[in-house]
């Protein structure tokens, strides 16, 4: 294909019929058609059907429509509320802790005082290529009460061992530590790219005005990082609402439901008991909470382009 010839031709005098090509031709729709065909079948149809199913009694055949059957049960189901409470506890405790750690990591990586950057990058960013199943298996092993490496480490420092997997609060903490390990580096990468887009001249101006390092952080870094921080916050929120593999494999949702999450409960209802209607109601609850958080983000950031 001769691009040279093309360039010469495009240098025609203004007014030449360059724009006669049908702007509203089918071409863009054809390029989009594979995506949207699949999208209709595997996104739109399931999302709509799931909504319908949440109003269907699927406990008996034939399935019968009922406005209240599943939703009534949901409101009065202590296991659901327990799962919701656990999920929100993780959300409220783990997400802020992880994001503080991620901001600290991003600032450290942005500092010219840090040596061995290649090594540190590998240490903190390597977890993000690990799948949830492999690292959950490793964490289950490490947090083993009798033989785990972690309790041995505590013993070395003169601390009492913790029954990580067989007591409620430690089990929840184990799940949170695992997610923090896996996702801190991921968020730090995003925050680091946000940090690097802050103009250095702002820091120079702040220095000239006599601002200390801490003041620069509060007055320059944090405000300008806010959109990126919120992006991380919403991603982490949606991720936490979808938490499944870690509680499923590390703690087996135990002990006594202490690490049951919305999605582990949905899985049990939908694919152990095959109660699709009730599982759909749980799924929609998760989606609603996710939508509320996303909406709040859009409002808080206010008109920022996607």
């Amino acid at each position, binding site marked *: *294909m001769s691009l040279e010839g093309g360039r010469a031709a495009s240098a025609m005098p203004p007014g030449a019929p360059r724009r006669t090509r049908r702007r509203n031709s089918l071409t863009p729709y054809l390029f*989009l058609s594979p995506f949207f065909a699949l999208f209709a079948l595997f996104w739109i149809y399931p999302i709509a059907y799931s909504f319908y199913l949440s109003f269907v009694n699927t406990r008996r055949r034939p399935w019968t429509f009922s406005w209240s059957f599943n939703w009534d049960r949901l409101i009065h189901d202590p296991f659901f509320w327990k799962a919701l409470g656990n999920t929100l506890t993780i959300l409220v405790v783990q997400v802020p802790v992880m994001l503080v750690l991620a901001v600290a990591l991003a600032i450290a990586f942005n500092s010219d005082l840090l040596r061995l950057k290649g090594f540190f990058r590998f240490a903190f960013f390597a977890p993000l290529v690990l799948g949830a199943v492999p690292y959950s298996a490793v964490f289950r092993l490490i947090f083993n009460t009798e*033989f785990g*490496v972690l309790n041995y480490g505590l013993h070395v420092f003169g601390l009492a061992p913790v029954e990580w997997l067989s007591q409620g609060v430690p089990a929840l903490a184990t799940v949170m530590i695992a997610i923090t390990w896996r996702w801190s580096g991921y968020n730090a990468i995003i925050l680091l790219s946000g940090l690097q887009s802050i103009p250095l001249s702002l820091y120079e101006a702040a220095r000239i005005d006599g601002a200390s390092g801490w003041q620069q952080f509060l007055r320059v870094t944090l405000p300008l990082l806010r959109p990126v921080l919120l992006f991380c916050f919403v991603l982490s929120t949606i991720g936490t609402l979808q938490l499944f593999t870690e509680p499923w494999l590390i703690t087996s949702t135990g002990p006594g439901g202490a690490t049951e999450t919305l*999605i582990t409960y949905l899985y049990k209802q939908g694919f152990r008991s095959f109660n699709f209607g009730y599982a759909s109601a749980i799924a929609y609850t998760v989606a609603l909470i996710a939508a509320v958080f*996303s909406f709040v983000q859009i409002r808080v950031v206010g008109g920022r382009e996607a």
Partner: protein
Amino acid sequence: MKRQRTVQALLLNGGMLVLALLFLLPIVWMIVAATKANHQILSVPPSLAPGSSLAANWRDLNSDLPFLRNVFNSVAIASIFTLFATLISAMGGYAFAKFSFRGRAALFLVVVAALTIPFEVRAIPQYLLIARDLRLANTWIAVILPWLAYPLGIFFMRQNMLSVPTELLEAARIDGAGEARIFLQVVLPIMRPALAAVAIVVFLFQWNDFFWPLLILTQKQAYTIPVALGTLVGLTRVSWGGIMVGTAIATVPFLVLFLFLQRYFVAGITAGAVKD
């Protein structure tokens, strides 16, 4: 002033070093444990010295699972998925970025909104559709199909396609090239870095995905690596060495790859988070 900087540097590097070693511990422990017998893995005090049971662990793993077959399934599914998901994303991203057409803004908004919708809302109807209606349970295509419309991919490609010079496309059109040919021979070649970033992200996603494959794959022969390993974790009598060999096989290639392709990983991860 200079002394203060030295103290700061010491604190920063020291603190980071301690934290980095803690972060590396699970990965190191996974690789070490893959070489040890069960009683060595569960012995106190633990030792980071490698053992000599790698081959025995591999045999244990293969007695529990058709693990080579599971690896093959994972490689095939992730590769086929990556090829098509990347292509579909590139096509859609190209349309959004370089054409103006009726409904563009609305359709793009749909893509962005989809990013916030949890998969679980789709899981049950998809399961009924694929397992019950289409009878495709335990096939590769059952794992691949539902995620081929991958909103993050099309979103990322659109952002990158904006930088394709319109004059280049116009020139090719005046040359008489068809739209398909322009896409394949002009657009795709200059988009290679972005394609690589999307490919890495979608490959890793599919390679690691657990929830959907767990629903749709019920036979050992059909398992992907995560599903296979997931069924072993939590069993009462289990070869931890075997599981660790499996996790090492699932992760070490990507840890090595990560060392070389960090740029693309980072580009894929930061997609959409930061405005250029």
